[in-house]
């Protein structure tokens, strides 16, 4: 017995020493959390966002004029609300974390805002587009640099009406993303005098859309609006062609990817889609972002929302530099952000922490590339959208 007791005592002692030794004295180290989906179906976006946030931290650490050293704590929410709440709790409970760049998936963000509020941890959403995340509560901690789907669809509806289209059929997936787009696009289009002839919800893994498309063919819409992401977008577009539906194909931010063009080939020509934020290539800061990103040799591209993660991380760094590591002060500082220059254009937060300058960029596919509308042959009149 005595021998055992000795051994156990030894173990506990060594453990104590370990624990004691771990309380380090890095006083000027500031941690920032990044939360996004690193595994699962949308992990490409999560990893792109992670790399972009990581880039912001690395650039800040390389800058000798910065007062603090930064460290990125990366957490995977798996695009699942329960895991999201778990990792948000983890980030919020860590007293060395002073800000979070969080969430690509809307369903996760809606669930975690309470956690951030409870622990008073300032957070900036970098990808989730559901309006309720910022507008569904009055928590001062919650901010968002990307626009909501309200902005996106309002611009889209106005633009389409101006182009002379009046009748739509809608296919959307039944995730929050697709359903939200359906709702807000319909609202905007009816406000501007357009008409929705029919709407069809499909599950996110549906393969065959012949039933929906046959009905749509009978409705004879001028435009087929699609609210969803690339994989189903490709299927809908190709099956639409097989049924000889002449309508114009209009998508959302979810299909702006090279995979869409690869999947549909020539059919992609003339597809329209809309995305929040200016195109990174067109802003001076954006160019810097893209070149720096290349220099770091990350194994995967930043994807559509990488610049937003980069801007969000930079905003938190700037807040820490201005008011020091203090969650309450950082929240206050972020709430007062007006006309802040960033890689995604100017950022100004409204009372709900929503970026008020929702720059929406219009894209059209021309010769197998996503081209900004203003720079395309369609704008200059050399080509015509299908009618």
């Amino acid at each position, binding site marked *: 017995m005595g021998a055992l007791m000795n*051994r156990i005592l030894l173990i506990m002692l060594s453990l104590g020493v370990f624990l004691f030794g771990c309380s380090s004295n890095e006083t000027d180290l500031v941690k920032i959390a990044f939360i996004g989906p*690193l595994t699962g179906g949308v992990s490409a976006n999560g990893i792109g966002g992670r790399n972009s946030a990581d880039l912001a931290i690395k650039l800040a650490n390389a800058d000798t004029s910065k007062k603090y050293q930064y460290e990125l704590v*990366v957490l995977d929410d798996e695009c699942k609300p329960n895991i999201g709440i778990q990792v948000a709790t983890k980030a919020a409970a860590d007293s060395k974390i002073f800000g979070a760049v969080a969430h690509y998936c809307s*369903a996760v963000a809606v*669930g975690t805002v*309470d956690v951030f509020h409870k622990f008073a941890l300032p957070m900036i959403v970098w990808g989730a587009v559901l309006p309720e995340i910022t507008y569904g509560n009055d928590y001062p901690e919650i901010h968002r640099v990307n626009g909501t789907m309200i902005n996106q669809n309002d611009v889209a509806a106005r633009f389409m009406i101006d182009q002379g289209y009046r009748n739509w059929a809608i296919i959307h997936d039944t995730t929050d993303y697709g359903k939200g787009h359906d709702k807000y696009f319909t609202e905007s289009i009816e406000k501007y005098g357009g008409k929705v002839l029919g709407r069809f919800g499909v599950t996110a893994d549906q393969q065959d859309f012949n039933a929906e498309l046959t009905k749509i063919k009978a409705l004879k819409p001028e435009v087929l609006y699609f609210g969803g992401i690339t994989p189903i977008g490709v299927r809908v577009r190709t099956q639409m062609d097989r049924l000889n539906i002449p309508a114009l194909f209009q998508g959302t931010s979810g299909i702006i990817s090279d995979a869409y063009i690869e999947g549909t080939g020539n059919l992609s020509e003339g597809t329209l889609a809309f995305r929040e934020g200016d195109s990174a290539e067109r802003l001076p800061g954006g160019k810097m972002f893209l070149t720096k990103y290349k220099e770091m040799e990350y194994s995967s591209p930043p994807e559509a929302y990488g610049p937003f993660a980069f801007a969000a991380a930079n905003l938190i760094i700037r807040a820490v530099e201005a008011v020091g590591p203090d969650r309450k002060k950082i929240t206050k500082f972020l709430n007062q952000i007006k006309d802040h220059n960033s890689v995604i254009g100017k950022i100004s937060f409204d009372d709900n922490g929503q970026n008020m300058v929702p720059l929406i960029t219009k894209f059209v596919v021309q010769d197998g590339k996503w081209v900004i509308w203003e720079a395309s042959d369609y704008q200059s009149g050399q080509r015509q959208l299908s009618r």
Partner: protein
Amino acid sequence: MKKQDKYLVTYCEILLTSTITTILVVAFLIVEKEMLLGAIIGLGILGFFIAKGRGIPHKIDQVYREHPCVFYLTIVSPVIIAIVFCRHEHFALFMIASVAIYATACLGLTLQLGYTGLTNFAGAAFLGVGGYTVAVLTNQSIPNVLVILLGGLMAAIIGSLLILPVLRTRGHYAALVTIAFALLFKTFLEINDTLGGPQGLKIASFKFFGLDFNEPLLGSSFYLSYVIAALLLMLVVFIITRLIEKSWLGLHLDAVRLDETVASCFGINIAAWKILAFTLGNFFIGLAGGLYAQMLGHIAPTNFTFADSLILISIVILGGIGNPLGVIPASFLIIVLPEKLQFIQEYRFLLFSILVILVLVYRPEGLLKRGLRSFYRTWGRERKLEN
């Protein structure tokens, strides 16, 4: 040595073992540095071999079988002390509560799969039934404790829809029925707007006789009350499961699993016992789901996918099929390990899977194998204690 002294020494050894285990577990939860985590795991393995060398697992098993009250006391008291000790550690408490809740759900599965041999691949769906019942009813004015009970009841009732197909089929086919239910349940939630659709539902905080669970309890963490509730629930469900196993009920269930034909020849009503195990198991899972939903404060269909059902099943298999005690360390491994591997980011599930495979290779019957049923007491027999 006198007999009385021998008992005392054994009790002390067990108490010491459970204390050290608790210390290691808590340290593992709190510590973030990879090196320290490695050190703790090393200490744990070292401790395990020391304990094995002294024949402690065998002694624990004996006490567990024959002196349940002593067993519960020696296990529970260090846990209570540990909780008091880390009452400010939000995240550790959150993880402890999650583990307890998953363990509770898996006890329900043990009843179905382990005792009766009913494969239930819809565990997460029943977890969801409990969660959604709570989400809907909490927003009405019904006492919360009752609401969680109703969550369990609802899971049992909805589970009874499956009774007929489960009784009519055997083995793989019965498993297919439950898989179909799991898929159906998630799709149903996604298209159903009254239950929040794909975005899920927000849940008001848990109240227990005027005590708001989301307010800090006695100046400590928000999650302390949930940890206590979850551990209590687990303890109650564990004792019930254990009592069922030990009694003639368990004997009947075992008979049904081992050989249906023989069992019915001996006059056992196969259908009745299957219904009992299936319904009671679902009831337990529903209770766990209810509490889980309360703690998360927000639930969405993506929490209850088929993949989550597989996680529940793998906990039961990893713990050792049919051993309720094994479920607890197994859910600890499955829930906490992916979380502790966050530092390797997108590769964590790869490593996690390898670890699980390794455990199954070296302990093919799970962490704690279910012992043979003993029909008489062995406690105090010289031969056994000397082992």
